């Protein structure tokens, strides 16, 4: 077999028993039956209810906190302020900038000041209303651009820059000299609320030995353990954290809020000796938790008359609100992806993560990528317009292909399916036909079509140590338990780990069970973020499975009197590869292992190779592999009212390897609609630092009536890192839809909206301006 046909077979997934199969998730039955799974469902009956008193102003000195009348409300058991914290009053994810409870100052609306524990929620609520906080208002800075000015209000003493990063490749001035056309535009994006259907919730109780157990809705139990231990002033091993079934997360449940809910519950439990639960209201959640960073992106792009990109200069500024959360990492990813997936010889990018007195932004699916792709892809269409080219042709002249270099001069490897994604998405969407059909349409309801392309660096890259531990246990009755502190919060990725383990072990999936993530039984494993579970966790699962397989085969070989290397596990049997009669049941080998005290508990550990990007030179490898994709959106614009409807969307992604195409489609579809909301309707509005629409009655997310006809195309160019070549696919589906919609609206109306979301007001004003 030639190497090419071998690769082809590998691509087609030939020889896999389970990889690439549309398998059911392992956690489905409890969910469809509505069993009590989530934190609030399993709270102890005697748990105290917690109410948090939060700042109502964006920037102020706290002159006094009067809790006297609140204390008198019958049923109130404890009122705690910063003075009652026995450990360190910090609840940060990255930079030590955020107290759990404010002391002398509040820097944004919604900052926690006091916590009240009562027998029931109504009492806690009533007492909360009676806490009087005396503020001395300070001037607030609520625009990241204003925050950059030297005389701006300082949010923190160290200044307003939470992170700065640059890229310098080639000589940007030379690049612009080579350009025949240069365009310059400013793009803006908004706060997007993640709106997991289950708001933040955590609970805690004391154990008899004085240790604390926390249960909550979260992505990363070990972050919670560290955070709670810090606040309580005890050793982390005295804090046990268990992830309850989590009703959606999308990022914010990885960094700060699960620390808040669990730490506040633990403080109350310690003070009162009673279990305590803190469940955010939706209103509270929308103000307090982290949202998608708003960005201001100034782009200058140069190209030759025949459409070769020569230079890109970008200023990328994010608004992280009053506290950094993971903003400094979000800006890194944004900076790396700011050019879009194109070959540009001369690049200059400056990226700033700025503090303001707005509410906190942080981790959110996409992590800086949707913002910069919106800008870069809008810019490509503006450039195409200026060059009088088809936007698809302009892109195809410049896209990343194997052998080209990214903005940081990383060599693009063979695992780059961008061209195929663009080709297949545009074919399926009938790009050329539709463009001709829509051109020259002057009716009131005008149709348009837009395209956007992306690349998405997988996993953490330079954002952190990229490792995972996965434990696999074969029980005496041959059930296999997969256990890890990586968490399930909706994606199905943990079922994917079981699928990878089953494939590697040669066992059927119905033997598999998933254990609850629990710091008492799972090794610390890094955060469950950045679509890491399959790519990095999957490798760890493979390693654990290989170790177990090795043991099974050695014991099997002993039973069959042959070499372990001549055996395989298939269909519940351990059999000789050449002589099918020499066989023993898997069950028998497992029993034998237990009899001989051969442990069938194994841990797989995997750490991704380091990326050699250096901040100093701003060049090098930023991520070990990339996901690529193309989205084509069609819109219908009511040119009298400005209302945009999206009748059709076509997406193609190079996923490396589809482990479970059914779950993968679920990720792509869900991400597309979350991003459609981002593009068309979602905006958490701050007025002078105060959130104006923190309810789902005022902040709209897409319903079943808002979704377009959708086609998903899966392209597979196996990546270098992920198991079986799998690439990250949790986050990438949110990167492009807003950009494709913006380009479709510009195609329909002839006038561009430079700011998300594409509301009727903005679309209409752009149309009017062009007239």
């Amino acid at each position, binding site marked *: 077999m030639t190497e090419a046909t071998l690769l082809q077979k590998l691509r087609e997934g030939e020889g896999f028993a389970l990889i690439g199969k549309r398998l059911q998730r392992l956690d489905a039955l409890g969910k*469809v039956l*509505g069993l009590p799974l989530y934190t609030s469902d399993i709270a102890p009956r005697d748990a105290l209810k917690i109410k948090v008193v939060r700042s109502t102003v964006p920037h102020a000195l706290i002159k006094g906190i009067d809790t006297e009348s609140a204390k008198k409300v019958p049923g109130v058991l404890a009122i705690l302020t910063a003075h009652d914290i026995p450990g360190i009053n910090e609840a940060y994810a990255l930079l030590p900038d955020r107290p759990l409870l404010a002391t002398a100052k509040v820097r944004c609306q919604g900052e926690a000041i006091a916590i009240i524990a009562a027998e029931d929620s109504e009492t806690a609520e009533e007492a909360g209303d009676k806490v009087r906080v005396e503020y001395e208002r300070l001037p607030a800075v609520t625009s990241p651009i204003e925050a950059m000015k030297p005389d701006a209000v300082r949010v923190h003493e160290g200044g307003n820059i939470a992170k700065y990063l640059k890229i310098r490749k080639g000589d940007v001035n030379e690049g612009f000299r080579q350009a025949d056309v240069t365009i310059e535009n400013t793009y803006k994006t908004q706060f997007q609320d993640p709106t997991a259907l*289950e708001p933040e919730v955590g609970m805690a109780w004391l154990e008899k030995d004085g240790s604390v157990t926390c249960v909550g809705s979260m992505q990363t139990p070990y972050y919670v353990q560290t955070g709670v231990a810090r606040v309580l002033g005890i050793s982390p091993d005295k804090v046990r954290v268990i992830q309850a*079934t989590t009703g959606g997360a999308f990022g914010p449940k990885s960094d700060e809020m699960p620390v808040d809910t669990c730490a506040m519950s633990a403080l109350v439990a310690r003070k009162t000796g009673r279990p305590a639960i803190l469940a955010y209201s*939706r209103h509270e959640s929308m103000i307090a938790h982290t949202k998608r960073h708003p960005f201001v992106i100034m782009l200058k792009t140069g190209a030759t008359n025949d459409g070769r990109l020569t230079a890109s200069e970008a200023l990328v500024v994010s608004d992280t609100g009053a506290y950094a959360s993971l903003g400094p990492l979000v800006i890194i990813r944004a900076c790396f992806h700011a050019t879009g997936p194109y070959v540009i010889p001369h690049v200059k990018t400056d990226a700033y993560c700025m503090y303001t007195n707005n509410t906190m932004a942080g981790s959110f699916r996409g992590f800086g990528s949707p913002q910069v792709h919106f800008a870069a892809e809008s810019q490509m269409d503006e450039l195409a317009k200026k060059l009088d080219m088809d936007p698809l042709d302009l892109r195809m002249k410049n896209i990343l292909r194997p052998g080209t270099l990214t903005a940081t001069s990383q060599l693009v490897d063979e695992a780059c399916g961008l061209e195929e994604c663009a080709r297949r998405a545009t074919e399926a969407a009938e790009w050329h036909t539709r463009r001709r059909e829509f051109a020259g349409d002057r009716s009131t309801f005008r149709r348009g079509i837009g395209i956007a392309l992306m690349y998405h660096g997988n996993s953490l890259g330079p954002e952190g140590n990229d490792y995972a531990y996965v434990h696999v246990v074969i029980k005496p009755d041959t059930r296999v338990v997969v256990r890890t502190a990586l968490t399930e919060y909706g994606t199905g990725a943990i079922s994917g780990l079981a699928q990878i383990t089953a494939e590697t072990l040669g066992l059927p999936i119905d033997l598999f069970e998933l254990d609850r993530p629990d710091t008492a039984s799972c090794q610390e494993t890094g955060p469950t973020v950045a679509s890491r579970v399959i790519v990095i966790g999957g490798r760890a699962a493979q390693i654990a499975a290989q170790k177990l397989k090795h043991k099974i085969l050695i014991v099997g070989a002993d039973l069959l009197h042959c070499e372990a290397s001549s055996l395989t596990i298939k269909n519940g049997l351990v059999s000789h590869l050449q002589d099918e009669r020499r066989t023993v049941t898997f069950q028998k080998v497992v029993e034998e292992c237990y009899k001989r005290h051969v442990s069938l508990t194994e841990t797989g550990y995997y750490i991704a190779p380091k990326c050699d990007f250096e901040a100093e030179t701003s060049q090098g490898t930023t991520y070990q592999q990339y996901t690529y994709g193309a989205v084509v959106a069609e819109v219908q614009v009511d040119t009298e009212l400005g209302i945009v409807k999206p009748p059709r969307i076509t997406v193609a992604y190079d996923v490396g390897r589809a482990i479970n195409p059914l779950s993968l489609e*679920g990720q792509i579809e869900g991400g597309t*609609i979350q991003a459609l909301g981002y593009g068309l309707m979602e905006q958490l509005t701050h007025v002078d630092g105060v959130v104006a629409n923190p309810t789902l*009655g005022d902040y709209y997310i897409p319903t079943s009536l808002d*979704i377009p006809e959708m086609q998903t195309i899966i392209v597979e160019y196996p990546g270098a890192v992920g198991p079986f070549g799998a690439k990250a696919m949790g986050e990438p589906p949110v990167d492009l839809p807003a950009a494709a919609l913006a380009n479709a609206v510009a195609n329909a109306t002839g006038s561009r909206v430079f700011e998300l979301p594409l509301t009727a007001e903005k679309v209409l004003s752009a149309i009017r301006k062009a007239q």
Partner: protein
Amino acid sequence: MKFNVNGKDHALVVGSTERLLDVLRDRLNLKGVKEGCGTGDCGTCTVIMDGRLVNSCLILAVQARNRKITTIEGVGTSEKPHPIQKTIMKYNAAQCGFCIPAMVLAGKNLLDHNPKPSRDEIKEAISGVLCRCTGYYKLIEAIQDAAKEVSGVKV
């Protein structure tokens, strides 16, 4: 107050301001009824009351007097799930799962009244329940598929 929940009669003393949601969750221990917003916007607290979908966070418990309520606990069992529960599993349409009890009830209520719904009728029927994970596509497919079983078409 008397009412029937999942086929069982209950007699309870309830406060005049108690929400149906809290009575179901806290007094009858029906934890499948979720609270996602408390303002009637997200629909995760949806239950069926006398054949109609209601947001149990917006209904006072006393309004359920002499009514018949169905919650997710009254639909299907692990041995015999409702056709919609089976197809939601088949399509991996339950991701985080928080909206699923309400989605199952919305789908079931639709099929109870209209065993052969069009795609648009399905979209309309579940439009009161928000889902942030699936983009609704797999849920719609699941209900379409379940309709075939309910209306006797061999799947």
